[in-house]
């Protein structure tokens, strides 16, 4: 198989505490050597010049929706995996709210088939925590695990009550399965579409209090201790949640958390009134929440950044704000928005890369997210200075539902390699 050398790049690999300019050598799909110049005997079929670029492990995204099976009108594996590769993502977790829900090995197989047909990046299905995600009966979690599910979750659907959640967590723990929860108290969120605060009050929008997240989170933390279940909290949005998770970790609970990248940048103050591109769940909260999320990321309370990618068709976003479907197409803004955090001084670059590589690998218990010799060569090469405009020419996702449409962003992936294969290259302008 082919041998590749990536030369002259600034190699940043948080897992190996590496930040140096040099080469990465790849043979047979695996990383052979990092840092030093190739030995004389190493003849590469392909040399990638990464001058001016950063070479880091491929990104691992903890929450995406590719809309297949079931919603191929919104997007397809073909369109969204291309978007992922173009965003430097080499591994992505697929939320279980497919149609049908990911609650049987048959659906998992279907997803694996779809992924195989495209060939890249690696798709890791998250199994349903309950049958049909209805929150009433346990899914066949062991079968799901054996079929290839990396974790279990009920996505955005509520569990019927705390007893069912407790039992689901106990059962998952028995099989060593990670349970992923986006904390949201169903009744308190009351079909809201915006954060309960100034914006929702002014525009008369059904609102979701921060407490809807915090209360659900507090319940889960108690149950995590009771059941010994390993938990990960997805798409944290509120200040008090950051405080709770900080305390829980300090107390010794084995929990982790991520934040959707747009929550680190946008608040209710940024919403153009009634622009459905800003309709997202959890809702965009306040400047204070944003500052806590940034701090939480910086001090490790929030382990990872995810895209929470949710592409939509035009019709899903064409209507009065509360009637539109929530979610942003956000794979392709993941890197530039992470880099903006670095530029704004919220985190350093090494930390930002870790939150997309080493840390999600750790959350999932995967031997990935590092440039260690012997590991599969999943690599992202990006130009941190390249400015590009979000438009039809640059965008790969079928979903154009991003509030950053038409805006200029800084930082662009130049090459993505998965298992030593180049799965994406930015076309020369």
């Amino acid at each position, binding site marked *: 198989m082919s041998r590749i050398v990536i030369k002259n790049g600034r190699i940043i690999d948080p897992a190996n505490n590496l930040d140096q300019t040099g080469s990465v050598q790849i043979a047979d799909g695996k990383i052979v050597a990092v840092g030093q110049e190739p030995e004389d005997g190493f003849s590469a079929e392909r040399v990638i010049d990464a001058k001016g670029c950063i070479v880091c492990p491929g990104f691992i995204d903890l929450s995406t929706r590719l809309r297949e099976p079931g919603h191929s009108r919104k997007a397809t594996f073909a369109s969204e995996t291309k978007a992922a590769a173009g965003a430097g993502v080499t591994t992505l977790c697929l939320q279980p709210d497919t149609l049908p829900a990911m609650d049987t090995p048959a659906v998992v197989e279907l997803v694996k088939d779809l992924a195989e047909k495209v060939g890249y990046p690696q798709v890791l299905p998250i199994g349903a925590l309950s049958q049909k995600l209805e929150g009433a009966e346990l899914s066949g979690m062991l079968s799901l695990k054996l079929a290839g599910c990396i974790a279990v979750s009920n996505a955005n659907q509520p569990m019927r009550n705390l007893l069912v959640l407790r039992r689901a967590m106990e059962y998952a723990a028995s099989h060593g399965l990670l349970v992923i929860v986006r904390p949201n108290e169903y009744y308190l969120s009351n079909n809201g579409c915006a954060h309960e605060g100034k914006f*929702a009050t002014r*525009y008369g*929008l059904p609102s979701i209090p921060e407490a809807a997240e915090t209360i659900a989170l507090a319940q889960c933390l108690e149950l995590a201790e009771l059941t010994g279940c390993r938990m990960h909290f997805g798409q944290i949005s509120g200040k008090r949640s950051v405080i709770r998770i900080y305390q829980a970790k300090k107390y010794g609970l084995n929990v982790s958390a991520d934040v959707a990248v747009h929550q680190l940048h946008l608040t209710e103050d940024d919403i153009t*009134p*009634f622009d459905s591109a800003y309709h997202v769940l959890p809702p965009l909260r306040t400047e204070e929440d944003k500052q806590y999320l940034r701090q939480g990321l910086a001090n490790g309370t929030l382990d990872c950044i995810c895209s929470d990618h949710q592409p939509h068709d035009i019709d899903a976003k064409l209507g*009065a704000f509360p009637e539109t479907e929530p979610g942003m197409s956000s794979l392709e803004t993941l890197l530039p928005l992470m880099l903006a955090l670095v530029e704004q001084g919220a985190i350093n670059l090494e930390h930002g890369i870790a939150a997309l590589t080493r840390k999600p690998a750790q959350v999932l218990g995967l031997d990935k997210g590092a440039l260690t010799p012997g590991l599969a060569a999943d690599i992202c090469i990006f130009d941190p200075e390249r400015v590009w405009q979000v438009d039809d020419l640059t965008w790969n996702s079928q979903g154009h539902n991003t509030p950053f449409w038409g805006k200029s962003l800084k930082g662009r992936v130049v090459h993505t390699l998965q298992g030593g294969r180049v799965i994406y290259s930015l076309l020369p302008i």
Partner: protein
Amino acid sequence: MDDNIQLNAQGQLKHFLTIEGLSRALLTEILDTAESFAGMTEQRVKKVPLLRGKTIVNLFFENSTRTKTTFELAGTRLSADVLSMNIATSATAKGESLLDTIRNLEAMFVDMFVVRHAISGAAHFIAQHAAPHISVINAGDGQHAHPTQAMLDMFTIRQLKHDFTQLRVAIIGDILHSRVARSQIQALNTLGAAEVRVIAPKTLLPAEVESLGVTVSHSLGQGLRDIDVIIMLRLQKERMTTALLPSESEYFKCFGLTPEKLKLAKPDAIVMHPGPINRGVEIDSKVADGPQSVILRQVSNGVAVRMAIMSMAMQKQGAQG
């Protein structure tokens, strides 16, 4: 601020969707224009030819009697052709999207949509997507805005109290769900009212309500002190079934406006209500029909104010084309 879609390049009214973003001068111009129409409605011939040849479609996705009727009358008195559609019971029931409904009506060459819809932001959405020559008037969208109602209330207040800067106004009741209250608060603040006070139990107040520019009270006893204008809001029956209030009788005990409570306000305070009123729930009949009540005057003023807004939006449109 996107609300500027309400104004054309010359800063003149094109759509009327919300009070937010409109200047005091523009609101005053609406009130002044309404003044001229108000005199007219008492004459024997109640028509002016301002909108002759224009077609106005009233799109009511939510039922309404009073608002629809006054918009019909206003359009007719401006000599426009007026068509009223109750869409709650037609197209959308068959699954047609809001945008398709609008496109179909556009294809019939109408000039103005008057829209009422149960979802906040619906009028904005229609204004954003309608053909450029069409004006959109918001006749109430969800819990967001009801700007023509607010303007007719301002008109009524100005008739009786003249100077907004001296006025303390209390709005009483279900602020949380009220598009009328949101528009009134914005209008009163834009026109420079000395104080806008909301009086309600916490369950009927939105989060951070002070950010709207109001002071807050939870009791009529304290809240009515020094008040010049009392605006009562209608209490929907469903507030009792969704655990926002225990019962109508308890609500009336706390927030119902009785002759005794009315005495707590200034002696010359006026009592307003956007209607339809719930006698014995938010207001005692003795107050509703009493000398301080101006509720029916509000209804009469509704036509003149809507004529003013419709003609202003359409005239600017003509000037543009």
